[in-house]
């Protein structure tokens, strides 16, 4: 392959990488690991308040700087549901002892999107969220929490369990709720990698072109 074709190939590759980087970043930013919307809600029994074994649980593994996003909502009559996040060890201990779910778990942050208000004011920490009949929570969790100078999540890699339990205050026993769990995907990493390689390739092309140009100039003499 002659140098001109190689240069063209590198140039095209660089452009493709530079375009693909942000696209991958956008599409792989979050990976959905559980999606139970209104069309396909989750149903548990109200016995989940007396034994953690009947509660809904979702195991999650977090790595360094990874965060999970939970969208928890209820739009059903007579339902009261609670969501907590426990460390895997605590969950297993409660499960083995067949205890009722603890009233609170690890601290997470929930956001209330208040248009026009600074973001700092519309986010709060909590260890449990409860919904009766109607409600929606947007939750972020990374393992730990710091309240110094604001609300910040601390990245603590490890295994965690999202637990949902509740009761039905009506004649039924079913507790229906919607839950979406997303985890940070490889989007950010891939975006940076593709952009870096793309820009490096472009720089190489520029240097190569300048070199060929100088050579051409010398030959012209």
């Amino acid at each position, binding site marked *: 392959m002659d140098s001109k074709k190689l240069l063209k190939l590198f140039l095209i590759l660089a452009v493709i990488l530079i375009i693909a980087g942000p696209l991958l970043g956008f599409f792989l930013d979050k990976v959905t690991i559980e999606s139970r919307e209104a069309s396909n809600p989750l149903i548990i029994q109200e016995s989940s308040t007396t034994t953690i074994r009947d509660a809904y649980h979702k195991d999650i593994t977090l790595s360094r700087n990874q965060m999970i996003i939970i969208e928890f909502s209820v739009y059903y009559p007579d339902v009261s549901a609670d969501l907590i996040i426990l460390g895997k060890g605590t969950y297993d201990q409660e499960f083995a002892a067949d205890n009722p779910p603890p009233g609170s778990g690890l601290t997470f942050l929930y956001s209330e999107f208040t248009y*026009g208000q600074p*973001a700092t004011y519309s986010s709060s920490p909590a260890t449990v969220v409860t919904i009766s009949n109607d409600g929606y929570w947007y939750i972020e969790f990374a393992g730990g929490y710091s309240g110094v100078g604001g609300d910040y999540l601390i990245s603590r890699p490890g295994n965690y369990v999202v637990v949902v339990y509740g009761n039905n205050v009506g004649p039924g026993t079913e507790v229906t709720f919607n839950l979406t769990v997303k985890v940070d995907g490889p989007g950010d990493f891939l975006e940076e990698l593709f952009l870096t390689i793309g820009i490096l390739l472009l720089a190489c092309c520029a240097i190569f072109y300048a070199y060929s140009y100088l050579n051409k100039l010398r030959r*012209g003499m």
Partner: protein
Amino acid sequence: MGEKIKKTRLFESIPLLDKRKAMKFIIYGLIAAILFGLIMMISRSIAQNAGTWEAIANQENEMNYWNGVYGYSDYLRRQEEIDRTRYWMEFQDVIFMNVARVGVNIALVFIVIGFLSLGVAEDIDERTRRIYLIIAGLILFVIMFTTFFASISISVE
């Protein structure tokens, strides 16, 4: 060995360029100088407008948060990324300005050689050759001053 001979020939032939080669030197030098100058201006413009870009990016970040596209922690994460990009937008100026400065100076050397060669060409009339020599002198003056004195620079607005 062959490379050494080639280099010697290049330097020996520089003051004795014929009209066609001298014009080639001037045109190529001009193109290179314009290209590097363009890089300089684009780079400076990006650096100078980094603050405006940051304001837009922050506003977009806030609006995305209000629209529920992402939560508070993602909002903070993006804020940090915006800061990092802004610093890079400012710092790239240092890299590109230095590269472009070297490029412009090399291109100007080519132009000087071109004009000097035209200035000593025997097949051009005396007055025109004098003008070529004056132009070469002026460009040399600019190169020397912009290279050796950092406080003197030429800016194109």
